[in-house]
């Protein structure tokens, strides 16, 4: 007895929605479909229309044109007060009621909806436990007796209290310190994974967006510039604005696009031709490297001294100066060369490094196995600090 073609409508549909203030668009011709259980993040620079968009969904603001549907119902036909009681709403200023206890704050929407007292209390306690608040300890506290992070948690619980399918959150964690913020993001993710609410989340923090979003709507001057999953935005930003906004450091780049000059170690450990073997050995030890790049007074690269050659020279005696022990330069790279080309030279060089020299043969830096690998990892998995790749080139040492 299934009804063909009668699939579940999207949770929210924005249909060519615009809002005009004093002749200028705060939101312009925005169309968006949000699936059930999806977490959509609205992001963009200040004043781009994120809050306006959000508030049109619960009719705190009426669109100038266009239609908005929730569960297939045109919301302009629904009583705004009734509509809002079915939508969770969290604002940046938290907005807890100072004269009501934590329990009264959380239980307010159920109260407005006429849920009996006993049932309300049960619900409040369950919600408090959900975020690790012992109900006996927190139920009867007043907002001013809570920390900022605790207040914001209560703000989120208040939005969850009536068990709405749709929750709107306007920069809910904006005012918090980074650690609390991350905790709350984790908690939200956990809640989202458990309850599969549809969430529209406003932020101006790209890291937050990338972490939380199923889909990101990047806005600029009221227009949705790009809509896509975090991966899509990172891999194929629509234009220079998106690229700028995401931030170069997070973007996925291809090895062909990265120049050697960007990732080389700029101050390699060097030696001079006249240096004695003992002095060269000391220098290697001091800098914890196993290779010295030998340069003349002009900085022109003359050769490479490896620890092995140095030890051999010292053991056999006779030759005791760097110029007698060093090996020829071999393959080098140019700062403008791509990392991909340099990787080939690196593979060819036994020393495990490629000196980077300019047109005049002067040493500009060095590319090592270590710096190359960490760069590739960083380029391919941007923002992957959790994987321990967030500190590639900075720490790599010349032939460390």
């Amino acid at each position, binding site marked *: 007895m299934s009804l063909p073609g009668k699939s579940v409508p999207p949770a929210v549909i924005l249909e060519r929605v615009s809002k005009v203030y004093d002749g200028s668009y705060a939101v312009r011709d925005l169309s968006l479909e949000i699936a059930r259980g999806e977490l959509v993040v609205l992001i963009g620079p200040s004043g781009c229309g994120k809050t306006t968009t959000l508030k049109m969904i619960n009719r705190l603001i009426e669109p100038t044109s266009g239609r908005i549907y929730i569960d297939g119902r045109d919301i302009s036909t629904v009583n705004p007060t*009734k509509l809002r009681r079915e939508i969770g709403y969290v604002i940046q200023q938290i*907005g807890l009621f100072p004269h009501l206890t934590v329990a009264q704050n959380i239980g307010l929407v159920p109260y407005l909806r006429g849920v009996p007292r006993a049932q309300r209390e049960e619900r409040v306690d369950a919600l408090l436990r959900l975020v690790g608040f012992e109900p006996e300890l927190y139920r009867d506290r*007043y907002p001013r007796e809570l920390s900022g992070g605790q207040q914001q948690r209560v703000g989120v619980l208040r939005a969850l209290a009536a068990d709405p399918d749709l929750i709107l959150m306007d920069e809910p964690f904006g005012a918090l310190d980074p650690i609390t913020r991350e905790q709350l993001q984790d908690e939200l993710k956990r809640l989202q994974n458990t309850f599969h609410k549809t969430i529209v989340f406003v932020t101006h923090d790209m890291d937050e967006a990338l972490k939380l979003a199923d889909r990101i709507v990047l806005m600029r001057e009221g227009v949705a510039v790009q809509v896509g999953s975090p991966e899509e935005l990172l891999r194929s930003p629509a234009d220079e604005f998106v690229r700028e906004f995401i931030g170069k450091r997070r973007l996925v780049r291809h090895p062909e696009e990265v120049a050697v000059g960007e990732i080389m170690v700029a101050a390699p450990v060097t030696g001079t031709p006249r240096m004695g073997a003992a002095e060269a050995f000391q220098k290697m030890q001091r800098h914890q490297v196993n290779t010295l790049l030998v340069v003349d007074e002009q900085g022109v690269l003359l050769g490479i001294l490896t620890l092995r050659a140095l030890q051999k020279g010292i053991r056999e005696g006779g030759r005791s100066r760097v110029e007698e022990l060093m090996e020829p330069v071999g393959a080098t790279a140019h700062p403008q060369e791509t990392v991909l080309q340099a990787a080939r030279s690196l593979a060819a060089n036994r020393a495990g490094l490629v000196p980077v020299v300019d047109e005049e043969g002067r040493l500009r830096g060095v590319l090592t196995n270590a710096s190359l690998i960490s760069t590739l990892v960083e380029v391919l998995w941007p923002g992957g600090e959790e994987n321990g790749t967030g500190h590639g080139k900075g720490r790599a040492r010349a032939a460390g």
Partner: protein
Amino acid sequence: MEVTLATLWQTYLARSDKFWALAQEHLLTLVVLPVVLAALVSIPLGILATRYRWIQVPSVAFANLMQTIPSLALLAILIALGFGIGNKPAIVALFLYSLLPILRNTYTGILNVDSGILEAARGMGMSAWQILTLVEFPIAFPVIMAGIRTAAVICVGLATLAAFIGGGGLGDFIITGLGMANNNLTLLGAIPAAAMALMLDWVLGKIEQWLTPRGLRL
């Protein structure tokens, strides 16, 4: 004329019935009644003033004007306007004086409710009436109560003038005492009036504290 505690006591004993009648009249008829009437007018008016500018401007101007008219002049004006003499013009005058503090405090108290709180209230689906009764009024309550307290204390003092037009109250003793050059009698009116002002201030302060939700107490 010599005044000692003993002579004062003598003066009181000689007319203790009248004293208590006047004190009661002072408190109930000349303070509680006009202040309650003023609160009934000023609180709704103050709330409406936060909603409608066309109410705010004239009502605050009117209340301000009332405060600036010297009290005896106001009494005279009221008599001239046909309120006659006795209790009635006194009550009207005290009512007019009480309007401003209550109106002003109601207006600012409601207006100062944090905008984030109001947005949250609206966003969670409270009706305008629910926002007023469940959010704005309770949060503004301590401020409104402070306005009522101010009005009451002002009234205790001004009410002593009511006797000039036969309005009764403790001012009766003061004026009769002044007329007869009887300092004991004058003080029998003045000292209890001052005490009443202090006591009322204290009692209303306690009531205010007791009625203020714990989350708003400092």
